[in-house]
């Protein structure tokens, strides 16, 4: 086992992961990167024709020279409708290759069949996000390598900085031409933005585009540029449309969640943020809050320069009504979003480079005033967790969560307890963000403002908000639910690490130990 050191949030972290040296988290803005960005090998035009099509996936993998031990990157815009990751690894298994490192930007329940390739040794380990059944697999210590969890921005940063070298960028694309120009805006498996594939297309040694909708050259708009692509494969189906985007996003019907969303809108109005750029989440509470914020902006005749999202019908309606000046779209959640991104000039796809990258000269998530986010746990020091549950199981990826905390005011919103499980704890199981990054916690039983943000407190007090403290929320949850058992984890067996946005290690996830029939 690698040597463990204590980092700036007091957590034990390994100094080496999967054979690579690691820097412990030093504090927000404390790590100064040096050196130059990574770069793929230099290609030459005479090696490529205009038509890069090959008949099968296997032909493509052979053409780019995939070998055992290499790393494959893939975007997650197909979400739970993805039909390419599993066939990809079935093919790799049939080719007799092993020990592949898989580095997708996120995984979904549809990826459970990858477990057999982890068991058989085709996949060595997964970096990026581990959720659902794959998270359970990792938590129970079954994965050979250590999981490395990164935010969307952190994935871009790691690839750009050369920490995570992608040998093969694998890009399912809803529409593409023979050269490899590709877009997600239309086609039978349309998904909207393709931004998560940017890092793979720019930095991977080799790039394969797979599509089920070959279009006449040139494919426009070319979100993925053919000049980066080695091979194009046309398959019958890359995804299940109904699982890629929802028909129309529905606002939550839960009275408690609606109440929390109203409190968020109350807070945003009281703090003077109404009419300033915001991050629009697509979770139940965040989505409802967007609707209430729109109502209030309309009533007061206010307009925001832009919103970042997660686009949905509600954001599209705001754009069309003139309540926001632009949508900077990281991923598109419903059909209204897909239609709008394909037609409205001020609804544009963004990438983790433009939105989230911490090792850049700016990013849009930092320039919003408010972001409404969820969490699995937050503690009395305002530290927050989004990856593990209180029983120690790793069940979620970080997504853009860490990256969107950099706006002026980050708001964590959730019901104080879910099915008896309290959210406000003495100490989070896993630290995904230090307390200084969380500004406000909104629950149905009150709003707690981080004492570090006295300025916010001054702005909202005396305006009728249900203000409380994080300690008070903790005590209410404890009284209603009782004290939960501590997680049964084996601290001698790390199974994954959580990276901060700058590539340093903020916490370690350990093997859970609930006996054979947990």
């Amino acid at each position, binding site marked *: 086992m690698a040597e463990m050191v204590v980092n700036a949030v007091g957590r034990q972290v390994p100094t080496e992961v999967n054979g690579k040296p690691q820097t412990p988290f030093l504090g927000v803005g404390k790590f100064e990167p040096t050196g130059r960005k990574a770069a793929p090998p230099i290609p030459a035009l005479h090696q490529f024709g205009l038509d890069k099509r090959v008949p099968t996936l296997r032909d493509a993998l052979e053409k780019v020279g995939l070998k055992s031990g290499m790393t494959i990157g893939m975007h997650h815009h197909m979400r739970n409708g993805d039909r390419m990751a599993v066939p990809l690894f079935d093919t790799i298994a049939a080719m007799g290759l092993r020990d592949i490192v898989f580095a997708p930007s996120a995984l979904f329940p549809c990826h459970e069949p990858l477990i057999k390739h982890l068991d058989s040794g085709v996949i060595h380990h997964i970096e990026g996000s581990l959720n659902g059944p794959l998270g359970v697999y990792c938590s129970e210590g079954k994965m050979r390598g250590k999981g490395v969890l990164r935010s969307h921005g952190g994935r871009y940063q790691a690839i750009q900085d050369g920490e995570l070298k992608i040998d093969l960028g694998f890009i399912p694309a809803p529409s593409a031409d023979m050269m490899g120009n590709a877009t997600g805006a239309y086609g039978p498996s349309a998904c909207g933005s393709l931004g998560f594939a940017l890092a793979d297309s720019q930095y991977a040694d080799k790039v394969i585009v797979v599509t089920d909708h070959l279009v006449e050259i040139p494919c426009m708009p070319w979100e993925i540029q053919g000049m980066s692509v080695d091979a194009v494969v046309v398959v019958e189906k890359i995804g299940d449309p109904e699982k890629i985007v929802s028909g129309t996003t529905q606002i939550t019907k839960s009275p408690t969640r609606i109440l929390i969303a109203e409190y968020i809108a109350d807070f945003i109005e009281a703090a003077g943020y109404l009419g300033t750029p915001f991050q629009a989440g697509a979770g139940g509470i965040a989505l409802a809050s967007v609707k209430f914020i729109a109502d209030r902006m309309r009533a007061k005749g206010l307009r925001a320069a832009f919103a970042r999202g997660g686009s949905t019908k509600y954001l599209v309606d705001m754009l069309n009504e003139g309540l926001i000046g632009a949508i900077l779209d990281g991923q598109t959640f419903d059909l209204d979003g897909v239609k709008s991104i394909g037609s409205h000039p001020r609804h544009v796809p963004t990438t983790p480079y433009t939105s989230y990258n911490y090792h850049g000269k700016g990013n849009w998530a930092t320039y919003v005033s408010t972001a409404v986010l969820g969490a699995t746990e937050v503690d009395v020091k305002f530290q927050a967790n989004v990856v593990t549950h209180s029983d120690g199981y790793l069940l979620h990826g970080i997504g853009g969560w860490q990256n969107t905390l950099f706006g002026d005011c980050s708001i964590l919103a959730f019901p104080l307890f879910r099915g*008896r*499980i309290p959210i406000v704890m003495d100490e989070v199981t896993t630290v995904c963000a230090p307390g200084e990054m969380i500004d406000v916690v909104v629950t*149905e039983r009150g709003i707690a403002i981080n004492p570090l943000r006295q300025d916010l407190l001054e702005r909202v007090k005396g305006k009728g908000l249900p203000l409380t403290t994080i300690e008070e929320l903790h005590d209410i949850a404890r009284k209603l639910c009782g004290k*939960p058992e501590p997680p049964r984890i084996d601290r001698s067996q790390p199974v994954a690490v959580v990276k901060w946005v700058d590539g340093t290690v903020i916490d370690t996830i350990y093997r859970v130990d609930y006996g054979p029939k947990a």
Partner: protein
Amino acid sequence: MSDQAFAGREEKSDAKVTLTKGGPAKNEIVVRSSVQRLYGPQIARCVERTLQTLKVSGVKAEVDDKGSLEWVLMARIEAAAKRLFPDLAGEALPERAAPFAPTVRLRLRRSRLYLPGSNPDLMQNAGLFKPDGVILDLEDSVAPSEKDTARILVRNALCAVDFFGTERMVRINQLPAGLQDLPALVPQGVNVVLIPKVEEPAQITQVAEALQQISTRHGRHDPIWLMPILESARGCWNAYEIAAASDTVCALAFGAEDFTRDIQAERTLEGHESFVARSLVVLGARGAGVQPIDTVFSDVENMDALRASTKEALALGFEGKGCIHPRQIPVIHDAFRPSDDEIRYALRVQAAMDEAQRSGSGVISLGTKMIDPPVVARAKRTLRLAEEMGIDVQALV
């Protein structure tokens, strides 16, 4: 006679507890829970403690839990135990959540939120939505086979749930069965008892006396108000007598669904069939100096119709409306809110009144117009309502 009994449901925020006779002397406890890893041991301890309090031993207890809080789990254990041992008399009460606050006879009763007495999921957060009253219902929303379990669940809710100052109401079963609901509930703090399908004033005195006896037995002196629900031709015809039957009656409520069935008419959106009855309820209540409260509005999707129906109720003289979903509450409150113009006018009348008093004039006038006493009374009422509703009237000037 069976060797096994269960209570509760394997649903969100609830638990199904199955007890079987003939276990070892020490109770055997099996827990299967959605929160097993975090709360499994606590659930087992709760079962053990509750059975001990009830003096039940030698049973096998199986819990199929989906995140029930302890007051729910305890209610399910007690209900199962009482089904298994019908002579069991003890109670296993959860920890008290908040001190009980008595209410006055006449107060804001614009909205009352009905909560089925058999569903714990809706109870815990009900007070957060700030209705004027929450009704824990033992009558029509509870299946006949679940009356026993609901009574225990509602009793525990009265004890363990913080309703955040919302008036605590219980709708008991139709008399005379409803009298059996009272002994368990009253000691846990009830502000208003709703009595369904009342037809005769004698029924009111019967409940009032029963409540008096129970209160005395438990040394409680807080008033318990009665809200008879009139939902038959006979009940509406006797509205005044019923309202005047006891000085603990605070309001008369109208029940449209049963009423239309009773008069053998169809319930319509326009409600012509219940117009006279609703007016009788208003007249009976006002005649006796209590509040007339309108029926429940049960279409939770149609907010425009709810607003219209509430405005109509207001126009007929009603002061309140029943609802079944939290999102109906702000719509009802808004409909009963005096308009800004009404408040401004009331403020001007008030100022004229003050002026008349200062100058010692017997005549109150606004500009060149003399103001009659009913107008003054109405202005006073508008300002009192505005104050109760927390409206900042000075901001409107």
